[in-house]
């Protein structure tokens, strides 16, 4: 049985300027121990999808309009606050993009690190500190016994992200949601953090949802990938299929616009125009105004995800009709 099943999730933001359809009908599932990448440009709804499951959407202006998110049989969108507290921070943990702002600057790392343990487990402070130390060592912080008593500003960016990871994993969660955890870091530090997440995932056997805009990060880390555009999933497949045989025009365009091995002097492939404004109703396929293959039906009919091959689903009408190869 899948660990997490999200069905038809819709999260809208009701603002004075209109209704922003940040997430508009997202469905996916995740098995135990699996790594799922969610890729998309800014504003595509990848973070809001995960924030909705974690109950981190400010309401109002946000509202979860429909959908279910079953985590091991419990609907995260409708469970009681007590149930949610038992799951969040214990069975599902999250790490955020900016390690500078997600640690409390007034508290020593030791206090923050053991907070999830003190809340979720019957444990004395001494024992919690002991487990905190072990966790800091596991994430590669040298001299942990001394540094556990430091304040966050005494750590570098990469070290703070390690502290965040230690804090997220200290309760041995079954699911880790990582929201662009390496975007703010240098490439050499990013490589360290990715290796660390990979290793700890194997050791703890947890599932990971990895949100990123960087296709390169996904390719080495994830088993399966969802590509999001304007609040919807446009393609989902296992990583190899998605990279070597992408079918949706947006996925293809995204891959072609990465500066890779094109000869110098040749122009990069670009997607014309801008991502759509999700505060206005979108007729038909959201990508159609920028798509080189768009035809009249694309601008009228709402495309739905359809299975092309087992495990490979995509939402382009023309691919589904067999008109595009």
């Amino acid at each position: 049985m899948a660990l997490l099943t999200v069905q038809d999730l819709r999260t809208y933001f009701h603002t004075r300027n209109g209704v922003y359809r940040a997430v508009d009908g997202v469905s996916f599932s995740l098995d135990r121990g699996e790594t799922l990448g969610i890729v998309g440009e800014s504003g595509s709804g990848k973070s809001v999808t995960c924030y909705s499951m974690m109950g981190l959407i400010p309401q109002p202006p946000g509202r979860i309009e429909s959908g279910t998110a079953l985590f091991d049989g419990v609907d995260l969108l409708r469970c009681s606050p007590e149930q949610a507290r038992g799951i969040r921070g214990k069975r599902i943990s999250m790490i955020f993009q900016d390690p500078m702002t997600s640690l409390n600057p007034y508290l020593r790392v030791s206090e923050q690190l053991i907070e999830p343990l003190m809340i979720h487990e019957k444990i004395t402070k001494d024992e919690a500190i002991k487990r905190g130390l072990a966790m800091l060592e596991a994430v590669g912080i040298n001299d942990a016994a001394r540094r556990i008593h430091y304040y966050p500003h005494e750590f570098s960016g990469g070290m703070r992200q390690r502290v965040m990871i230690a804090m997220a994993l200290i309760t041995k969660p079954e699911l880790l949601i990582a929201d662009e955890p390496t975007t703010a870091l240098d490439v050499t530090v990013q490589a360290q953090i990715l290796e660390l997440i990979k290793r700890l995932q194997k050791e703890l056997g947890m599932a990971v949802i990895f949100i990123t805009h960087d296709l390169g990060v996904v390719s080495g880390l994830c088993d399966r990938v969802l590509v999001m555009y304007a609040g919807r999933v446009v393609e989902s497949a296992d990583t190899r299929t998605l990279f070597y045989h992408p079918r949706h025009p947006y996925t293809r365009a995204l891959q072609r616009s990465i500066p890779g091995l094109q000869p110098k002097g040749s122009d990069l492939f670009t997607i014309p125009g801008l991502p759509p404004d999700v505060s206005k109703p979108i007729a038909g396929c959201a990508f159609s105004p920028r798509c080189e293959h768009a035809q009249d039906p694309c601008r009228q009919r709402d495309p739905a995800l359809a299975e092309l091959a087992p495990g490979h689903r995509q939402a382009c009408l023309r691919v589904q009709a067999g008109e595009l190869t």
Partner: protein
Amino acid sequence: MDDAILQLNDVRTHFPIQQGFLFRRQVGTVKAVDGVNLALKRGEVLGLVGESGCGKSTLARTIMQLVPTTGGTVVLEGRNLTACSVDEMTVVRRDLQMVFQDPYASLNPRMTVFAALAEPLLVHGVCKGDEVVARVTELMKTVGLAPRFMQKYPHEFSGGQRQRIAIARALALRPKIIIADEPVSALDVSIQAQILNLLSQLVRKMGLSLVFIAHDLSVVRHISDRVAVMYLGKIVELGPAADVIDHPQHPYTRALVSAIPTANPDAERSRQRIVLAGDPPSPINPPAGCAFHPRCPHAQEKCKVAFPPLVPSGSREVACIRLGEI
């Protein structure tokens, strides 16, 4: 070099660290740029890469003379900028313009596009009256913005469009050199490609020289003719972009290249990644000898003695004394 438009000779930019409230005293120095020799040719794109804190942005600001230089000379077409007065610099800056990383912060939110683009023209007195409108129209077309947006404010534009405005403003005075400090890092992949294409078209069409600072090596490889890799204020490898990035020689460049994730799952899973231990050391107290030796997998005792100079190695220059051995 005859065709060099800009020449940096042993440029050093140090910042004092001061402590104390009533009696401020200097307790140390940050050697942000420490002995850089570099020549930029006409019409060349020079990529400048390195981790955060390696001094690449300070080097850009030193070239622009936005920070005082501690030592060395910055020579633009025979004129030493470090000896220029403020008035002389105003004239020089026509030839030397900059594009910054964050297009949300580099445009004044209270100025329309027209006002932002007209300002340099009026300050330098290069256009009068109707000519200003004509020049602004021309500039907007050059960077791919419709001139009808002239009276709009920055908040009405997306990130990519704002970066186009920033580029148009840098082009306003027909500079010879543009220094772009991480111009695409804040943009999405699809928009990033548009801005990269625009920059390389401008270089080709206008014969500009471009110093392109970035931390993304695949972007740098695509746009640059030559690449300089910086580590703790010094250049450790310098050479043709494709050579340096496809066949790096300095151990630091090797690690940097191997750290970039590629959009190729099979290659990604099979390749041996050199994961550097630790963070970049602080420029306040750089390690003795080669600054990279504490993180270098090939370091030996002799690496701790003196900083290795850049020595020619084929088409490039590399600063590593163990180059022949590794």
